[in-house]
């Protein structure tokens, strides 16, 4: 009895212990090891295939058969079983005969909306537009050559500068204002000669008188003044030179009391109400420049707009530049000859097919643009660019300040490869190009057979 009880007790204890232990073990077993879950996995996973494979059917024959699964977005992905596409995670679909035949003909790449959104893809339309190529150059303000006057001593022999009326450089003079008076012994002699001749009254001497009169007139003495000489006892000691124009003394070459010989330049006058501004253009930029093109000149922060009205026909030997000229009115006299200026020439190109700068990808050998077909289909197109990095002509309004505006969108001219109204990708281009590379879409394009000239970005210009 006792023994029986003992045994029962022990066996109960043992069973309890085993039960407890198994519960403990089970609860501590990872899912995968648990019977139920393991069975679940077993049913689910390649287990069946394994069993099949043991009985002579290899994994491949079971799973592959004739079926090929592919990703419609990424035709290069071919798998022998369904599952997500390694590139876009789309479920692979079974390939039918038709698809197997024509897949890969089209080199467009398909993106899911999620991909497009994550990449931040944006588009722009290929448009005809007026664009501007800007040439920035240095310039210098110069006086208008046509409005320059040099005053020189015209009295024969030596003469002395008696007085300088406009006696400093930069002095402003009006037309007819006395500038310089000079003493010339010859002049006094001539006056004497004239009076004596007149007083003698000899008719036969009148040709002589005429020639003296002409001499005086050439010295700048007016007929009226000459007439005064006839009776006047007082001899005019000095010749006064009057300003032929209104303008500025830009150079004074003599000082008071100085003796000058005939022909010595005394003074330079310039009319600065109009000035010239020269811009320097390098040879290679010449084809872009035409007379009449707009030019913005900035002098000391002030912007003046104008048009090129002359292109120097000669290249400056030392600097290898060609000067282009444009005239500006300078009524308020702010522009001084010799002033330093920066000039920006706008070479407009009207009505050209253009894409935003960010749409073009320079691969080194060629230029690629991604064109959207809509619905996430994007395909690479090789294009030929014409003029590059052109600015849109619509400029921000803002008066004088708009000159330095730099944030404008830039464009490339399209010579071939794209048509108007096509949608091109303007952002996340890099990522799309990378994807295209990974998918080999770029490789599928026409084989590279471009000559060196096409590699040169200069060639398009």
């Amino acid at each position, binding site marked *: 009895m006792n023994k029986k009880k003992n*045994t029962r007790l022990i*066996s109960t204890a*043992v069973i309890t212990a085993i039960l407890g232990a198994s519960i403990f*073990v089970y609860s*501590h*077993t*990872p*899912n*995968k*090891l648990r019977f139920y879950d393991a069975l679940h996995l077993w049913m689910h*996973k390649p287990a069946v295939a*394994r069993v099949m494979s043991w009985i002579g059917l290899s994994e491949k024959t079971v799973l592959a058969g004739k079926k090929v699964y592919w990703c419609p977005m990424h035709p*290069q992905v071919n*798998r*022998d079983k369904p599952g*997500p596409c*390694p*590139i*876009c*995670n*789309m*479920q692979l*679909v079974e390939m039918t005969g038709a698809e197997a035949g024509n897949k890969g003909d089209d080199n467009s790449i398909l*993106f*899911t*909306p*999620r991909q497009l*959104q*994550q*990449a931040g893809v944006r588009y722009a339309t290929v448009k005809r537009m007026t664009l501007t190529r800007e*040439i920035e150059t*240095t310039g210098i303000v110069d006086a208008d050559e046509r409005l320059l006057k040099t005053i020189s001593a015209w009295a024969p022999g030596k003469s002395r500068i008696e007085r300088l009326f406009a006696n400093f450089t930069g002095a402003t003079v009006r037309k007819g204002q006395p500038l310089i008076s000079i003493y010339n012994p010859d002049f006094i002699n001539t006056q004497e000669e004239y009076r004596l001749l007149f007083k003698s009254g000899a008719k036969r001497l009148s040709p002589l008188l005429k020639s003296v009169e002409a001499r005086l007139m050439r010295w700048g003495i007016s007929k009226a003044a000459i007439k005064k000489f006839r009776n006047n006892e007082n001899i005019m000691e000095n010749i006064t030179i009057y300003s032929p124009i209104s303008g500025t003394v830009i150079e004074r070459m003599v000082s008071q009391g100085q003796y000058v010989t005939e022909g010595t330049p005394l003074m330079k006058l310039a009319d600065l109400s109009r000035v010239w501004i020269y811009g320097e253009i*390098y*040879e*290679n930029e010449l084809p872009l420049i035409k007379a009449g093109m707009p030019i913005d000149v900035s002098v000391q922060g002030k912007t003046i707009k104008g048009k090129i009205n002359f292109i120097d026909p000669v290249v400056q030997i030392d*600097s*290898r530049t060609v000067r282009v000229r444009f005239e500006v009115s300078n009524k308020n006299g702010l522009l001084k000859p010799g002033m330093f200026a*920066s000039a920006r020439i706008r070479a407009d190109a009207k009505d050209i097919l253009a894409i935003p700068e960010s749409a073009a990808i*320079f*691969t*080194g*050998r060629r230029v690629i643009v991604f064109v959207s077909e809509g*619905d*996430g289909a994007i395909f690479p197109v090789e294009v030929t660019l014409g003029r*590059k*990095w052109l600015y849109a002509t619509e400029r921000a309004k803002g008066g004088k300040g708009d000159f330095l505006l*730099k944030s404008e969108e*830039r464009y490339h001219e399209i010579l071939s490869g794209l048509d108007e109204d096509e949608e091109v990708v303007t952002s*996340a281009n*890099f*990522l799309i*190009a*990378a*994807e295209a*590379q*990974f998918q*080999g879409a770029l490789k599928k394009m026409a084989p590279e057979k471009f000559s060196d000239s096409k*590699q*040169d*970005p200069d060639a398009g210009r």
Partner: protein
Amino acid sequence: MIRFIIGWCLNNRLLVCAVSIIVALMGAWSLSRISLDAVPDLSDVQVIISSEWMGRDSQTIEDQVTYPLATSMLAVPKVRDVRGYSFFGQSFVYVIFEDGTDIYWARSRVMEYLNQAQTDIPKDVTPTLGPDATGLGWVFIYTVEDTKNRYNLGEIRALQDWYIRYQLLSVPGVSEVASFGGDVRQYQVTVDPAKLLFYKIPLQNVADAIRKSNNDVGGEIMELGGTEFMVRGRGYIKGIKDLENVVLRSTLDGTPTLLKDVALVTMGAQTKRGVADKDGKGEVVAGIVVARYGANALDVINGVKEKIRKISPGLPEGIVVKPAYDRSGLINRAIKTLKSKLIEEMIIVALVTMLFLWHARSALVASITLPLGVLTAFIIMKFMGLGANIMSLGGIAVAIGAMVDAAVVMVENTHKHLERLGPETDERERWSAVYNASMEVGPALFFSLIIITVSFLPVFALEDQAGRLFKPLAYTKTFAMGASAILAITLIPVLIGLFVKGNIPPETKNPVSRLLIAIYKPIIHLALRFRKSVMALAILALLFTYIPYLKLGSEFMPPLQEGVILYMPTTVPGLPVAEATRVLQVEDRLLKQFPEVKSVLGKIGRANTPTDPAPLNMVETHISLIPEDDWPERIVEDGYIQSLTLKMIDRMLSEIALKDFPKKETALQIERKSGWTLNNWIREELTNGKPLSAILLALPGKLGKTVSADLISYMKSSGHLPDEHIEKAVEALKDFPVPPVAMRKTTFEELTKKEMNRIISIPGMPNWWLMPIETRIGMLTTGMKGLLGLKIRGEDLAELEKISLDVEKILSSVPGTLAVSAERAMGGRYLDIDLNRARLARYGITMEDAQNVIEAAIGGKTITHTIEGRYRFPVNLRYPRELRDDPEKLKRVLLTASSGALIPLTAVSKIVMRDGPPMIKSENGLLLTNVPVDIEAGLDIGTYVKRAQAAIDKAIEAGQLELPTGYYMEWSGQFQFMEEVDKKMKVIIPVTLAVIFLLLFINFGNLTDTLIIMLGLPFSVIGGIWLVYWLDYNMSVAVAVGFIALAGLSAETGVVMLVYLNMAFENKKKEGRMRNWQDLKESVVEGAVMRIRPKALVVSCLMLGLLPVMWTTGVGSRPMQRMVAPMIGGLISSTILTLIVIPVIYSFVKKTDATD
């Protein structure tokens, strides 16, 4: 000898006990001092030579710096590999030394050779040695954040660069603190070329003037009024004002031209080569703490954290230093897992002994071996400088069951002896019984423990990665086993004598033994009757095991679940910084949305350290995860697709259904419009020509129960569907029997390679999911990102690119490829300014002048550094951006001709865009391109490589891939290690078997017994392979090591069996009753059955002691499980077979013996 030791110890009980206590105390001391890490240091001995050459392209750097350096390094003694990396403006040469080379010895050798090599490289390039650390030393990454938004990125970066960085650098064990992200501030002197022209000042003069205006001098000492004054001439540039007032020249009449007259001076950001982003919220400044080679990671991290705490109050208000990647969490978790496993194992073993012996004190005696043995192992570890990590602790963990064996058997045998003596014994009789019992089994057990120990020694032959990984394990296992073997013959007999007394329950009364005997007896009888069939069955089972063996996948090491994801998508070279920043932010934002993610620190490009040779097109994002226990349950796999479908329907209802409801649409159209991925079923239906509306109505039936309910509410809330449609849908739902949708936690692979991979799909950037430590080890050893890839070597970059792109194409269509992206050897874009010598000559411009202008005006040149207290900022000179932002404008960059005239660049050069190498990699002098591959979750490397190689071979055969002479490719990464280990294993396994054979022979002294046990070994493999197969583990080094350990264990069980069989046989023979087959059978039955208890005890201890490792998912459990699984499986089969087959074999062998 062993008998003598046992005897001596029994006579000197006190001394033995005292020594044991001392050993225990020493062990406890060692345990508290031991250094902790997650994994053993796996990095190669590596010395980095980094040289900077500003603004030079990679080809120039390769030709003039990297190649000369790399080739001269090849001659350094003990060098194994030399890897060269040429970047834009930077060169890295990685010199990798043979295993076991002292790092500082290696560094001085490299230094020596560097001195010689210096003459071969340009004068203005100064190669420097990188830190004495490797990429594996990235133990802690932090961000410096401004909580109050008061400082800009430049200011924060300056704070990081000049303050925080140096503070952290002072922590012991820190080799380098590298900054990345934010803006490096610099003074930017933007010169207006028009003004330079106007003032006729060459650019060079401006640079000179600035350089000459930045100095402080000393004027010695001056004595004034009896006091000494120190004279100084002060002239450091201290700000924008100082720079602006730098005099460029002065006219004769004293009018100065100042820098501000010709240039704009600003404070700006240096060109970035690396960007950091946190959680997708915007750029941040971050720092990487690189631990010194061999330093203890945990100590370093704790030191750094302590330092951060100390300096935090001193930082400007609102500035905080936050950890972004912290390896200490992993270390602690790994150690914790292993620790708890050790304790669980000990408890289980103690319980098992308790159950079998049915005597508490005896169980205590047996169990005492465990803590003592472990502590002894720790003492030796401490002395050898081994740290505690998952591998070294794992070594102890796999030893536990075996450690207790000898003690258990000894106790059991004593029981048997005492049992025979009966309950009334005096002290002397008892001690002599103890002596006899110990003598009887002691030597054999000691030997079997020695077998287990020694048979594991071949593991030491592993080299490189595998060696570094498994040597610590082999060490600790050996120590622990050795210690327990010694304890078994010294302390244990003493303790048995002291404690095993009182009422010893006889074996026959033990319910466990009775049960076992009851089961075993009929079986053994049956087996002895059908001996030949048993043998045949056994051999058949062995043969059948070959099938799962063939089906096993292979990998180098099971991944260590690190708790941190390293996300490394890479695109083609040439990604601009702004785009890189944007993409990085998008990715980080998406990643942060996952509930499993704690924080995301994105990095693209390089951090400022030679240990990080990353190009700007490579993302390296650390994703910290919340503890795995807190991960939410998700609908995984198919279920997920269903839930996606739900949302898709919602979208379709709201966007498409309204307009085009009755119209037929193709699957593709719907997908494009809705933005969701259709599942196959819907696709099929659509192809079958069903209208969308019908499909929608039928759809709920295809979904799960909860999903259906959700769908109804979705339909109702969307408001676009006519009521009758909804009603119909509800109707359809009612009738449909639906299985429940399984919600469960994702595994790490599912989270990354499935869930995250699905959400993040940025075109042109294939996702790459890795783990930091694993990846860094791989990158160090193979120089390639990821765990697997092809290395293509050759001489010409263009050819290499062609081959690698072809390979990429082939691999991308190999099933199992998750991502593949060949490095674009020629993928870099260059804007070449080809200077024309003839034209330069015409204008009298030297090549150098022209190049200086290109360098300074376009690139911007750092002229000098300002010294402002602790801070240093570079001063950079360049043209205004708007004059150099397109090639057309570059043409107008002006050069000064000898005549003084200014000539545009275009007059002397041609500007061409070309492709070129973005970076050049070389290995041992040969150029190299890598094609890294990431494989799908659940696929093993070995299988994949086999498949991929077949595809490549096929392509070569078909002529799609051409490999010219001088070019070759090889698989690298983990596959390379695997192959190496494979080769090693082919030696190690026979050696192990030979060792076991030799030891057995020494022990038994006869060939027959030895062979009987050796024959048992193959049978143990059966269970091992089947269990490994059932658990879906791949063949790996860990599994192989497990099998090696198994060999020792199964030999031990065999020994125990044989000992008892021999005992019974000898007894019978002595009594002269060994006359015929019947006698032999009886003796076998007696030896086998009657003494089942000790055998069962040994096996249970071995096996159950390993079990706790199997029921954990903690960090570090995976490698352990791979190792333990074959041991457990093998033990099961070997036990069954030992109990049945060995007696059968024994009866075969001994029969002839008896009849003779």
